[in-house]
């Protein structure tokens, strides 16, 4: 290995360490030892939201256990100059060299601006559409094909529903959300083509009062399985439980909130992309700029089945999941019509999960009652 360190050098280092140690009680605790990779994670909401941010925080917590890695975290950082300064602070004050800005709105212009300013720091963004030639090489995006789990949610919901009416509470009609609504509905209609999904769009990522109102109104309209795509599904899951109907989770595992009605859920498993980025950074390998994965790659996972899941549902979902794990199952294939009757995927066309068109989805499939 390397040549042995001389006695003088050892003494010098001990001396410095001793001096630092003596000073430590007076100065602030430094975030890191010099030889550790400092990773900064930034959340747009609270870390314990039972949802989007918690899923990221769970991965960050797992990263803290890796040798040679120290993690600094900051929550509730708005998508304004705040996040630029937060990134800057992590780099300048904590010595971070790998950042995970986890909210979609951090990408452009905030992260891109900081990446230009700090070309030696790596920026791994969740959900952004990183484009070769347009975005710097020290930035990248990771995301998961969670529509696979939404499809499985749909299958279980389809078997469970007696009223054949499912409810979906969504934040905004943007491609990522529409893809989940459609996958959920397609999964349910693969069980019974008479099933419809009633859609309510609240308008923003975290509106607990509106989400509760929407949940109650959907139950009043006869919906007996509910799911959602908002930052924190807590309110929706709790409302469903209180009203005695079934619910599928999203982002993280919410089974503790609905012990009776929780069927299954679509969860992120961000440990996978975090680990890849951290290992690459430690090894000094160039970063993977565009990283995507589904069940097969371990980017997403389904919550364990709840008590209310019937045997047939379990079997059906497990069969499809096994195919997805092999990378053989196609969710979006023609002929597929939207809910106005227009053909959106022609007969004979099958979109693999990596298809860029899927990340630009702007329609609701047949069976969804609602408007983009």
């Amino acid at each position, binding site marked *: 290995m390397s040549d042995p360190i001389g006695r003088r050098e050892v003494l010098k280092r001990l001396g410095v360490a001793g001096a630092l140690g003596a000073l430590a009680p007076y*100065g*602030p*605790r430094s*975030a890191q030892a010099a030889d550790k990779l400092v990773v*900064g994670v930034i959340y747009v909401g*609270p*870390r314990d939201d039972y949802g989007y941010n918690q899923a990221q925080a769970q991965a960050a917590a797992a990263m803290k256990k890796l040798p040679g890695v120290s993690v*600094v*975290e*900051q*929550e*509730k*950082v*708005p*998508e*304004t*100059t*705040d996040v*630029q*300064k*937060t990134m*800057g*602070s*992590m780099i*300048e*004050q*904590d010595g971070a060299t790998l950042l995970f800005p986890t909210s*979609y*709105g951090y990408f*452009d*212009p905030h992260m891109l601006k900081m990446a230009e300013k700090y070309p030696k720091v790596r920026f791994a963004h969740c*959900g952004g*559409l990183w484009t070769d030639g347009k975005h710097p090489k020290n930035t990248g995006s990771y995301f998961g094909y969670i529509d696979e789990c939404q499809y499985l949610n749909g299958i279980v919901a389809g078997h469970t529903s007696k009223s054949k009416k499912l409810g979906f509470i969504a934040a*905004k*009609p*943007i*491609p*990522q959300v529409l893809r989940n609504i459609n996958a959920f509905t397609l999964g349910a209609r693969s069980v019974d083509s008479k099933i419809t999904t009633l859609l309510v769009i609240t*308008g*923003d990522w975290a509106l607990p009062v509106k989400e509760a109102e929407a949940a109650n109104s959907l139950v009043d309209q006869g919906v007996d399985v509910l799911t959602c795509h908002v930052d924190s599904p807590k309110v929706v899951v709790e409302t469903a439980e209180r009203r005695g109907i079934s619910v599928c989770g999203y982002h993280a595992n919410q089974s503790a909130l609905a012990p009776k009605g929780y069927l299954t859920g679509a969860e992120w498993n961000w440990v996978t992309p975090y680990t890849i980025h951290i290992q690459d950074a430690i090894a000094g390998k160039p970063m993977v700029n565009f990283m995507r994965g589904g069940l097969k790659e371990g980017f997403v996972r389904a919550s364990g089945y709840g008590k209310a899941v019937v045997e047939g549902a379990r079997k059906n979902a497990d069969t499809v999941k096994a195919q997805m794990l092999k990378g053989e199952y196609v969710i979006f294939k023609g002929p597929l019509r939207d809910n106005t009757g227009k053909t959106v995927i022609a007969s004979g066309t099958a979109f693999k999960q990596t298809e860029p068109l899927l*990340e*630009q989805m702007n329609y609701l499939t047949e069976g969804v009652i609602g408007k983009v």
Partner: protein
Amino acid sequence: MASGPSGRLRQSAEALAIPVGALGAAMVVFGLVMAALGRSPLEVYELIYQGAFASAFSWQNTLTRAAPLILTALCVALPAQAGLMVIGGEGALVLGGLAAAVVGHLLGGAPPLGVKLAMALAGMLAGAVWIALAGALRQYRGVNETISSLLLGYIAIAVFNHLVEGPLRDPASLNKPSTTPIGDASMVGTLPGLDVHWGLGFGLVFCLVTYVLVKHTTYGFALRIVGGNARAARLAGLPVGAIVLGACVLGGAAAGLAGMVEVAAVHGSANASLIAGYGYAGILVAFIARQNPLAIVPVAVLVGGISASGGMLQRRLDLPDATVLVLQGIAFMLILASETVYGRLKIFRPERA
């Protein structure tokens, strides 16, 4: 009343010493809270200082956070001179931002300086109209301006969201609906030698100009008379309506300019990130500054500094984000409570001849 140079000096000393003392007391109370949570108060103080004021980087962090608050605080402080409690600055800000984004896009390709000026004017105009609406409702229809400006703020945000996600949406903005970008050429840069955008410069100038306007012009004198007693002002023959609306227009223009800065210096287009609560944070700043346009600057810097150091506390001590709200809450409660002390401390009392 204190009079003469020594009296005025005493007054200034009092106005400085009382809030600073309250701030010191707040730090002690916050230290006790931290100690109760098992954190060393000294370490917490050190981190707050490091995060907010210790280096050039932390100063710029603080000032960047303070910049929008200076302008939105003016949206409260200026109508307050006329006796109006306007708390709807958020609405003026988002509409100002939207107007700037639309104008910036429409004029794309024109000489950049002209585009920037037009954006600033459009932003200020939109904000001015919105707050003037609350002022007019109060002046001519007797509608409580506090409530109406708050509700107008909600309407503004709803209109903003509708336009950004609907008719004005750039089809290329997939997962984050935004208006069409104004383009790099039309962006407003940073202050020379600093990593702080021009919003800070605009805010400082706005504060200075309105301070002079309020304290040293006849309009300002009339404004303060209206604020003191509108009926007496009317009896004295002052055009109360115009004066009140003027104050609302100025305040709204400040918040609208803050929106323009968010678009032209930060985001490059109008989107939901503009609804960041700057308008509401400005209310706090204005009240702590006792509605004095000049005092807004240090108060905004203080709020910016607390917010900058909040990140440090989170990252180093694993404290939740709410910690900084606790500090802010304690500090502002004590500063507001300390107002009762004015005129009661012996050392600031003028000697009787």
